[in-house]
């Protein structure tokens, strides 16, 4: 059971400034001088568009938090006393990196891994499939159950692992999923098998029967993000130990 919630941000970055933006926003979130809510928010993952499918350019930030931590963070943005001046300064200093964005608050499915669980198992990837789906009212919960039961075992056989599966707070029709591929070849194999793998075919039949609309993005991880590397020495290139 994942007890957290997630702040999900789609950022309209200034073209070509995706990596500097992601490093900059991470720096302000890691700024120890800022007073935080009772539970500090951590970076769950940062990504940028690959331009393979869906809109580009853009960046995605996902921050792990709790309801109380999120409420405190928001309260501090809109009050007279105890203002978050470091965030205000950062906001106005970095207008050359981003133009705007669109955020959601995500509620994880019970089986959706936490940040700590992803780190513990060394989750990483070169490509990530990010989808926002619009389903009939009442269907999102069932969709996520079906995803766990019908999709994930088959996806794992093709080298695809679950990074996150969520409902969207205050938007009762929406679901957001994030799958990771350690190699681009895994993503290719997974997509190719949609028509040949019986389990994936069954999944796609269900999916086609209920998805009213979807928006996909194929993402790559921020260079500094732990999801860009398994943490194993062989993935660290020239700096790895012999």
């Amino acid at each position, binding site marked *: 059971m994942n007890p957290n919630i997630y*702040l999900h941000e789609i950022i309209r970055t200034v073209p070509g400034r995706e990596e500097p933006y992601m490093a900059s926003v991470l720096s302000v979130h890691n700024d120890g001088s800022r007073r935080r809510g009772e539970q500090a928010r951590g970076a769950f993952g940062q990504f940028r568009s690959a331009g393979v499918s869906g809109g580009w350019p853009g960046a995605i930030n996902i921050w792990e938090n709790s309801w109380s931590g999120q409420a405190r963070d*928001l309260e501090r943005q809109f009050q007279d006393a105890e203002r978050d001046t470091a965030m205000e300064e950062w*906001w*106005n200093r970095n207008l050359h990196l981003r133009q*705007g964005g669109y955020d959601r608050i995500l509620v994880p499915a019970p089986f959706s891994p936490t940040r700590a669980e992803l780190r513990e198992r060394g989750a990483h990837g070169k490509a990530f499939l990010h989808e926002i789906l619009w389903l009939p009212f*009442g269907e999102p919960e069932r969709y996520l159950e079906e995803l766990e039961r019908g999709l994930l075992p088959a996806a794992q056989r093709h080298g695809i692992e679950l990074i996150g599966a969520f409902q969207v*707070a*205050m938007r009762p029709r929406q679901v957001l999923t994030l799958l990771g591929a350690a190699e681009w070849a895994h993503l290719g194999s997974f997509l190719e098998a949609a028509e040949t793998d019986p389990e994936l075919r069954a999944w796609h039949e269900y999916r086609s029967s209920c998805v009213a609309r979807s928006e996909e993005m194929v993402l790559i991880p921020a260079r500094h993000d732990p999801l860009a590397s398994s943490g194993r020495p062989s993935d660290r290139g020239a700096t790895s130990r012999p």
Partner: protein
Amino acid sequence: MAVYIHERIEIEGGGRGKLIEMIRSRWAPHLEREHGVRLVGAWATVGSTGNWPEVRIHWEMDDWEHFSRAQHGQYPMEERDVSLAELWNQAIEYRQRGHSMLLKPTAFSPDLAENSAEVVTGDVILHEDVRALPGRLPAYHAALAAEFLPLAEKRGLRLLGAYAHALQPGTGLNLWVLRDWDHWRELMEATQGDAELRAWNQQLGAWLEDLDGFLAVRPPGTALRT
């Protein structure tokens, strides 16, 4: 029956607080004094729940006759209201585009005077964009009044307004007032296990194509710097 204009304004750079301050201190007093148009709210969209940077402004007029008179008095601004034209041009630094909705209230929607008399106050606004299935908006509003409103009030939500678009069939807007951020947290923490709210959400498909909720806030007394 009152008439409303709801504006969604895309903000340039760090101009959100400056635009809200201009609306509150100069624009709204001018519109009320010269044209009788009342400001219901100038709110900052909470970027963590929707589009950013963005400002929402909600105006109220008495009726269609007042709407006509107020717009006749404003347009074209360069001839009829040069002070407003100057404000409009000064605000270009903070915003260059927006989108407005012309709205009619439902029969159960309180107006500004009623909300003020009942002292409906709160820091946080839950904004719901409603898109109904063809021909189903009236039935949704009937169910909203009969079934959801009592559930919402039991959970501390106060209805600021429920509206139908005057020109776009099937488009609606709901505005709810939450007491503060702790109230929002309580609602969100309880939602997954709230059988009554789940049952309400399950049946929305009988009337609606979609419902998008996000938060907006009444800004603090001193101007936001973002």
